[in-house]
């Protein structure tokens, strides 16, 4: 087993572990805990990204996701002063059926993934660094338009956030 493979297993394990802890933490049902584990998941994912030669995205992942988005989450949690989730009546039926559905989905996805029809190049020849991505983004028209649209989207988000959270005017 090569080092990258080992690292893969480590990061994969961490990703899934932290991911699981986001969803269901046996020790704490506090949203803050979830948020913190989400940050960790994202970081572990960034590790996987690096293994996949997506350096720029790994950085973005940490900067934008862990840095900005998750801070936003934490900020809101603090703002709302959310207490630890009270233990309400557990809906066993819901849990069983929900888990069933998810397992079903997982089974189907696995079935697809392991159907043995993947074509894969052995050696990585592409490097997803800033330069490469920047080149792609600004030279190929097919990315330009989405890029511009995303800017509108961000504007919409801005307007929306202001509208939704500004103080009510008389």
């Amino acid at each position: 087993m090569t080092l990258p493979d080992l690292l893969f297993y480590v990061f994969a394990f961490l990703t899934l572990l932290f991911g699981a802890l986001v969803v269901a933490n046996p020790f704490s049902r506090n949203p803050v805990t979830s948020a913190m584990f989400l940050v960790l998941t994202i970081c572990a994912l960034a590790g996987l990204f690096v293994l996949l030669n997506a350096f720029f995205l790994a950085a973005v992942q940490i900067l934008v996701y862990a840095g900005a988005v998750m801070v936003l989450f934490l900020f809101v949690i603090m703002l709302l002063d959310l207490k630890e989730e009270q233990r309400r009546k557990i809906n066993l039926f819901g849990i069983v059926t929900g888990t069933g559905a998810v397992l079903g989905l997982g089974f189907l996805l696995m079935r697809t993934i392991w159907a043995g029809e993947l074509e894969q190049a052995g050696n990585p020849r592409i490097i997803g660094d800033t330069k490469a991505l920047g080149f792609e983004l600004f030279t190929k028209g097919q990315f330009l338009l989405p890029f511009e649209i995303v800017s509108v989207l961000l504007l919409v988000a801005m307007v929306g956030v202001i509208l939704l959270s500004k103080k009510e005017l008389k």
Partner: protein
Amino acid sequence: MEPTLSPAGYAALTILLLPLAAAVIALVCPRRDPESTANRSIGAIALGFVLSLGLFAFTGDKPQEANFNWLSVGDLHVAFGLLLDPLSKLMLLIVTGVGLMIHIYSRGYLHGDRSYSRYFASLSLFTFSMLGIVLANNLFMMFVFWELVGVSSYLLIGFWFEKGSAADAAKKAFLTNRVGDFGFILGIILTWAALGSVNFTELAGSVELGGRLADKAAGFSVLAEPLGKIFNSTGWWIIHPNVLVTLVGLLLFMGAMGKSAQFPLHVWLPDAMEGPTPVSALIHAATMVAAGVFMLCRIFFLLNIPGSHALEFIAWIGGFTALLAALMALQQNDIKRILAYSTLSQLGYMVMAVGLHAPGPAMFHLTTHAAFKALLFLGAGSVIYACHHEQDIWKMGGLRETMPRTWWTFRWGTLALCGVWPFAGFFSKDAILASALEHNNIPLFVLGVFVAGLTTFYMSRLVLVAFCGQARSESAGHAHESPGVMTWPLVVLAVPTLLAGAWGIDAYIAKALPSEHPPHDGGFVDNLFAPFNHNILAAVFGLLAVVAGYKLARALYANAASDPLPGKIGFLANLARDRFYFDELYGWFISVTQETLAKVADWMDRWIIAGLLVRGTHGTTELVGRVLRLAQTGSLQTYAFLFAAGVVLVLAWQLVLNSPAH
């Protein structure tokens, strides 16, 4: 085919349409002037009578036909057609003649009634319909007028519709007739299907030509094949041609059963007496009920096809009806009802005559009966009118003193009905009894003679109780003779009552209907004694029966204050009085069959079809909707779960279940 009408044809058409015109005018402008409505009706029928006389006198015996294409689709050709032959001419005379008298009489009888003009309109409508039956040259047209006669009878019986009993009687008459008509129309259809025509002349022609009807192959193709198609395509259902021709005869006879009130459809006629008395005289004695017999004579060639057994059946039905009705008449107390049962009984005679291959005598009896029975009914009406609408003979009595003209004419009518020589009834009844003998049908002969005795008995009872003795009620005591407009028709009708028997009517009829023995046509005096020459046995037995009946009645009822018979034969008398419980029996039968079926159908319609199936579907749909939307719990978790489950379903469906590649 555009008709070219002979003068006789025009005359016949005029006779037919005049009453219709009168009726239509009365209907369109009803309340304006009742008197003129009556005058128009009387004028129409009077003119009709004159024209009928002219036709009778001046046109030859050769049948004449006029056809207007009324309906012609595919192989169904129905003409509005008139047939003038001795038979129809005689009937024209009867209908218009008796009708005229009754119209005139009605002016007096219904004077002052608030629906005077409706009465005359209906009467004219009836006359039109009856004339239509008489003149029709095909079965379809006959059926049309047959039905119209039924409905005008319905209107006239129910003339006083505010009286519940009258309304019920009208309904009953119509419905009972309809049962007969049901058979009649099927018979017509069957005839048409077998012989390809409804025209009498054409039918007679094809029957004479060897009769496709009797033809084995035709018989199969007409009935067996389609029936076989329904029951079994291999055709095990086979109808023998004899059965087929008998069936045709019997179905057509059903029409006559209804109109002529033969057993078992006889129940409506006594109830029909709820109508005004002139109506009873015209419709339920002289004309409408005679239509059945007339029809049987008209289509005699269809009943008489070799292989058919219809006539035997008809004879027995007639004879049985004659007996049954006579027995019922014995214990009736209502003067009109006695006459009604007597009518039934006499119709039985006529039908029996037809059944005995003697349509001639049947028509003969029909003719004489029309005259004397109309006379009797009008006489009864006069009595009722005089006694302030009292109809119970036990509340009359002594009327011979106060109502001389009515008494004389009524007595003549009675004598004719009983068959006393030389009154008309004797000759026609004798002809029937003679045919029974000649056909070697001794049972029916005996039955005929016995019924003749019964007839004399109940008529004598009526006369003795109502006219003789003392007045038994105040109204009877104060009775006085009816006005001339009512009594003069009695007098006029009394003439044929006395003379029609020897007039030579039977000979005239014989020109249209083949008779088994040559008719007597030796002049009036010859005719008077002809029955004794022809078949003395029948004549003598007939007269003996009359004598016996009279003696018995006189012994019982001369000066009786109440009916002694129930005390003597109690049970049987009650049975006769209550009409052998036929009405009750029918009522029960209808309630267990028709009403039960109706209830079942209604229940099924309401609960199975509309309820279970329709409302059930509706309810189920709504229920499913209500259940389905329970998925919309409002909870995000449920939604997310359902969403995910949907995704799994879609993926599983496509990847696992529906994947041809794997």
